[in-house]
C-alpha cells in the first residue's frame, strides 16, 4: 500500500520521459524497419562479394539491429541519464528530500521504490517498443528470414546499458563528495561498462560485466542513500 504509493509517485515522475522515448523509438524504429522491408530487401546481399558465406544471425542483424540499434542505444542511454537526474538530482533543487524522507516507511523502501520505478520505466517504454518491433520484423511477410533470438537479446542489452547509465547517474547524484573525487565514480563506471560492452560481443562476457557493474552500483547506491544526510 505505502510502497505502491511511493512507486506510483516515482513512476509518474518518469512518465513524460517514458512516453517521449517510447514514441520516438516506435516512430523511428518502425519507419526504418518498414522502409527496409519495402525497399532495402536485398541491399546487403548485393554488396557481398560472391562466394561469401553469410550466416543467419549476421543477415538478420543487418536487417534489424543495424538500423534500429543506434537509435535504441542513444535513447536508452539518454533515458538513463534523464531518469537518474529526475530521481536523484532534482529533489536537491526542489528541496523535497525532507518531505519525501519523513514517511512512515523505511529509507530502504523509499530508495527501492525509486529504483523499481526506474527499471519499470525502461521495460515499459523501450522494452515494449523493442518487443513490438521485433515481432514486426519476425513476420514472414516483412523479412523473408526472421531475425534470430540473439538479435532480440542484443536489443535488450542496449536497454540494460541504459539502466547502467541510470544507476551511474543516481550514484553520482547521491554522492556528497566533490566532483573531482568520488562523486564522479558512478558516471565513470557506467561509461566504462558501456564502452567495453560495445567493443566485445560474447554474450556471456557482456552479461557478466553488466551484472557486476549493476551489483557494484546498487550496493554503492544503497550504502550512500542509507547513510547520507539530507
Amino acid at each position, binding site marked *: *500500500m505505502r510502497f505502491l*504509493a511511493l512507486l506510483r509517485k516515482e513512476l509518474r515522475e518518469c512518465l513524460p520521459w517514458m512516453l517521449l522515448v517510447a514514441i520516438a523509438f516506435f516512430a523511428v524504429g518502425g519507419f526504418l524497419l518498414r522502409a527496409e522491408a519495402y525497399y532495402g530487401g536485398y541491399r546487403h546481399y548485393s554488396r557481398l562479394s560472391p562466394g561469401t558465406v553469410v550466416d543467419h544471425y549476421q543477415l538478420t542483424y543487418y536487417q534489424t539491429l543495424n538500423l534500429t540499434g543506434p537509435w535504441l542505444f542513444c535513447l536508452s542511454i539518454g533515458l538513463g541519464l534523464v531518469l537518474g537526474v529526475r530521481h536523484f538530482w532534482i529533489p536537491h533543487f*526542489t528541496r*523535497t528530500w525532507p*518531505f519525501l524522507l519523513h514517511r*512512515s*516507511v523505511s529509507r530502504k523502501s523509499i530508495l527501492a521504490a525509486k529504483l523499481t520505478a526506474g527499471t519499470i520505466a525502461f521495460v515499459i517504454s523501450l522494452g515494449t517498443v523493442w518487443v513490438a518491433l521485433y515481432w514486426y520484423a519476425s513476420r514472414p511477410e516483412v523479412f523473408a528470414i526472421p531475425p534470430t533470438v540473439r538479435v532480440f537479446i542484443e536489443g535488450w542489452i542496449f536497454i540494460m546499458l541504459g539502466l547502467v547509465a541510470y544507476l551511474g547517474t543516481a550514484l553520482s547524484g547521491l554522492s556528497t563528495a566533490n566532483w573531482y573525487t568520488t562523486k564522479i565514480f558512478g558516471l565513470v563506471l557506467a561509461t566504462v561498462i558501456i564502452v567495453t560492452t560495445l567493443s566485445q560481443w560474447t554474450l556471456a562476457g557482456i552479461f557478466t560485466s553488466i551484472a557486476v557493474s549493476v551489483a557494484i552500483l546498487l550496493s554503492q547506491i544503497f550504502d550512500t542513500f542509507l547513510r547520507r*544526510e539530507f
Partner: protein
Amino acid sequence: MIETVLETEGLTKYYGSTLAVDHLDLKIPQGCICGFVGRNGAGKTTAIKLMLGLLRPTAGSSRLLGCDSQQLKPAIRQRIGYVTEGHRLFRWMSIAELEKFQRSFFPKQWDDKFFADMIEYFNLPRRRKIKHLSNGERAQVSLALALAPNPELLIMDDPTLGLDAAIRRQFLEGMIELIMRQGRTVLFSSHILGDVERVSDRIVVIDKGVLRANCSLEEFRAAVKKVILSFADSTPAEVDIDGLLHCRRSEKELELILVSTTDDHIGKWADRTGAERYHIVKMNLEDQFIEFTAPPGRKKLFRWEEI
C-alpha cells in the same frame, strides 16, 4: 507524570569545521506548544533535521517519542508530523494527488473530513497543481497535510516565514486546534515573536548553536529584565550584580540586562552602589529576545549625531 516527547542529549553537529549545533540538551514535555526561536543561522533547522534523523549528529543523540532519531521506525514516524522549511512539496502533484499520496502513509489516522474542511476553509482548488499555487496557498496545503493525520508530535520548521498575517493566523489556529486534543505536542521554529508569544506556553532559545533557554514562556518573560540606574556623580567601576548579562554605561547612567534577578535583589544592589534612582523597565518579548541573544558589548548600529 508528564511524558517527555522530545529529548536531546549533547546533540552536536559540525559542518566541516563550522559548529552548527553545540551540545544541545533539550527536553520537551508532552502537551505543550513550544516556540523554538533563535536568530538566522542559530542552528534551528539543523537541530530539527537532526531530531528527525535527516542529518547525522557529530556527537550526542536525540529521541522522539522514545525512539532514537537515527533509527526512527516507520511506526514512530507515523505519529510525528513534520512541516518542512519553505513548505517544499512535489511540484507536479495536484492538491488531490498529494492528499492521496500523504493519506496512504496514515491508513488508520487520516481524517478525510478534516482535510476536506481545511481545503474548503482555505478556498483552495483541489485540482490545481502545487507549482501553480502561491507561497501562501502552498503553506496552507502543507499545514492541512500535516494536521490531517492527527500527529502526536508536530514539528514545524519556520512555517510562517514570508506569509501574510491572515495565513500566519491560520497556522496559529491550527496549532491551538491540535493542542486541544489529548496529549498532542507542537514544536515550531519562528522569527515572529508575536506569534510565539500568542500560542506558546514554552520557549526554547538557541543562539549560535547553544541552548540559551528552555522554560515556560512566563518564566522567560519574568526572567529577562532591563534596569536603568542613575547616579549622582559617576557610575560604579565594577558591576557585580547577580545574573548580569549586559551592561551599558553612559556618564551617569547604567543600563543593565539581568536574567533571573529578583526585584528585591535589584533594589538592594542599587542601594549598595549608591544609585540615586533605579527603574525596572518592562520589556516586551521581542526586546527581551534581542537583548538576550545580543553579543556582549553590542552598540546600537545607528546613532544620531548630537547637534
